[in-house]
């Protein structure tokens, strides 16, 4: 039986020669992302912003403007309503009084009492300003720590050029993910943060596979030109890179389309992250080694890890 091959068994694409194209592309995207972040910022979820969120549903499509009028009459402050997943489901957001958690809780009670007769209250989240502040700093700390841990691990297992190259690629992926969330104004909450940390792990995983082959080839072909050697390494691992990306994307697409509204943002972030992570391993991390330069004499290390 002939097996399915997404990538021919022997490729010789010249990735390195085209590195300026990918560098430019990334630079443009990251700049656009940074501009968006600076101008419109992130659409922070209540985890990070504080406030109140109520998910309610009923058997028939919800008349949002009627519901808005009804809730405005309750005098609970500024009410935002949007449909969630389907027409029967709505998300109600209250900016609320950010200083006073008790007021927010009272508003929830009022809304719940009013809606309970005609709606099923599916979810209520109230996050005080103190907690959201802590979640932001914990999130920044987690991502920084994760990247630092990768930096140290790769340094330890490879050389500093590899460590720096992979971390630049990682930071690129994290920045690109935050950028797309700002650009599309998708809600950024703690599950997106979890996705970013997973992307950090996944992207590193991908980069390590390419770097591992680079290291192996550095030992094998002591005289080969570095850019040629990098191209060879990327091409040799190309089939694996695509197959793994495809299986991961298959699982993630299932999650994105079938996993329900609550997990939608997470699945989107992961899909994007796997895409960007794969791209950066090939087009950013590997070419970076050419710029950073690598140690060519690995003879002392052969016994240690082979």
């Amino acid at each position, binding site marked *: 039986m002939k097996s399915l091959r997404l990538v021919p068994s022997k490729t010789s694409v010249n990735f390195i020669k085209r590195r300026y194209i990918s560098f430019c592309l990334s630079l443009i995207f990251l700049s656009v992302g940074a501009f968006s972040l600076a101008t419109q910022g992130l659409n922070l979820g209540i985890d990070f912003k504080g406030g109140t969120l109520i998910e309610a549903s009923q058997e028939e499509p919800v008349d949002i403007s009627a519901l808005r009028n009804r809730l405005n009459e309750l005098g609970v402050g500024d009410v935002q309503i949007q449909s969630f997943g389907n027409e029967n489901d709505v998300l109600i957001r209250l900016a609320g009084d950010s200083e006073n958690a008790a007021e927010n809780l009272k508003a929830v009670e009022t809304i719940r009492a009013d809606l309970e007769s005609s709606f099923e209250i599916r979810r209520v989240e109230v996050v005080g300003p103190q907690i959201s502040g802590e979640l932001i700093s914990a999130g920044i700390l987690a991502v920084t720590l994760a990247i630092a841990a990768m930096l140290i691990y790769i340094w330890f297992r490879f050389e500093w050029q590899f460590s720096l190259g992979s971390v630049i690629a990682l930071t690129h992926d994290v920045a690109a993910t935050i950028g797309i969330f700002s650009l599309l104004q998708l809600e950024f909450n703690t599950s997106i943060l979890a996705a970013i940390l997973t992307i950090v792990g996944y992207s590193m995983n991908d980069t390590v596979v390419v770097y591992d082959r680079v290291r192996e080839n550095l030992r094998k072909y002591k005289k080969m030109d570095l850019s040629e050697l990098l191209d060879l390494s990327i091409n040799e691992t190309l089939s694996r890179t695509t197959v793994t990306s495809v299986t991961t994307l298959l*699982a993630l697409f299932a999650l994105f389309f079938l996993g329900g509204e609550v997990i939608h943002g997470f699945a989107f972030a992961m899909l994007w992250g796997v895409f960007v992570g794969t791209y950066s391993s090939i087009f950013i991390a590997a070419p970076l080694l050419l710029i950073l330069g690598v140690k060519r004499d690995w003879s002392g290390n052969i016994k240690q890890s082979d």
Partner: protein
Amino acid sequence: MLHFSKYKITGIALAIFLGLLFSVPNFLSEDARLSLPAFLPSGKLNLGLDLQGGSHLLLEVDTGSITRERLETLISDIRIELRAKSIGYTGLSLVKNAVELTIRDESQIDEAIVVFDDLNQPVVNSLLGGVGGNAELTIEALDDGKFRFGFSEQAIIARNTKTVQQSIEIIRRRVDELGTTEPVIQRQGNTRILVQVPGLNDPERLKALLGQTAKLNFHLVDQNRSAYEAANSGRVPAGSLLVYTDTDPATPYLIQRRVMVSGERLVDASMGFDPTTGSPEVDFRFDSIGGKKFGEVTKTNIGRPFAIILDNKVISAPVIQSAILGGSGRITGGFSVQEANDLAILLRAGALPAPMSILEERTVGPGLGADSVAAGRLALIIGFVAVIVFMALSYNLFGLFANAALIINMILIMGVLSALQATLTLPGIAGIVLTVGMAVDANVLIFERIREEIAAGQPALVAVDKGYSRALGTILDANVTTLLAAIILFQLGSGPIRGFAVTLAIGIVTSVFTAFVLTRFFVARWIRSRGRSVELPI
């Protein structure tokens, strides 16, 4: 790489057997699960609040109020002691979180210091049960006979710890009254308490029960002056307090500052009905000291009203008709059945030592939880099938080996999660789905390597052997990085996110085992059955 010793084979079989054993209870009906013999594991995956529905509340104990209360007590202690020793002072008052005063006569300063030192008790360390070496107060002598008193760091920590522990105890009693299964009540950080109550149909009631301090006191009403007049002029006599009812409009009451009987003396409270009007009321009973005190006060104050004060609000202010000597009484205040019931619960459980505020609430209804389980399950099945089909198409027979490993991988993940009694959350399910996609990576690495070796003209056996041994380093490096990310996520994440980190980490470990050890075992067996000059279907 292709040789497996008997011990190794036994080890592999044992790991799979244990995985099966621990995951089986998840597939049994509740009856069958509970009737399993004791030596078999019967633990099941716990569903997180986001999957089974329930309330998650993060509360903060206002320890500052305890400190303020203690400072007030300190002021009155100092006043009493200095008066007893006839030491003159001025400006005894609360300044920020400290008490300040000035000794009038410099010659009495030494005498005053002795008094202050006597007031300064060592900190009682609740953990060691004994008396610690640290003093409770910090006493600073400033210029011109001025002194400043504050609480020492140790004293504040010890008191906060005690306050939070007492609060947890009270909360537990209140939540237990709701009759839900397995609530989680635990301390978080220094002054916070996490309450998780699964499967609750009325989260507002939980909040109402936890949001109240439930400090009940009985005071005599001050009849020397009109409460309305005091409320309008803002002038309240020294020995009195101005309090209001919780009604709209609120009625002011002027009550004696001195507590007639404190709610701490209550031993029991229950909901009942007023025999004449039939409206709900709360019946309570005092302990012997409280009952005696209540009897004495009511005996001497017949015809006067007294006020029942709950958390600084007047519930009711009945007139004492006759001496109440039996040590029991009742509170009527136009309650609904639910309100009377809840007040009885609060009184039975006791008052919180300090007020609490709700910092965070996350409530998921049972409908959403069930939907999430269904959606998560569907995504898992479809993702799983897609990956399996893709692997079979890509690597033929070897793809099937990888698929068998993937199925066992799922069993192992479930087994480990059940054995750890871990909580499965929606992000946790996402972690498993993601693992399905990423788990085959190790096999992909190996198979691609084998293909390369074959393309380089190696004989089948050598190609397989080299494929496995050369891919190992890569597999380990690649997975350690993801594992590092998962560990950091676990350390810093909260609730559902932690569930994700746990499944991701477990998935990584089981993936490496199933992909590297198990498929290698399958491949080795297969090659052996085929002889050495086999053509690899990869």
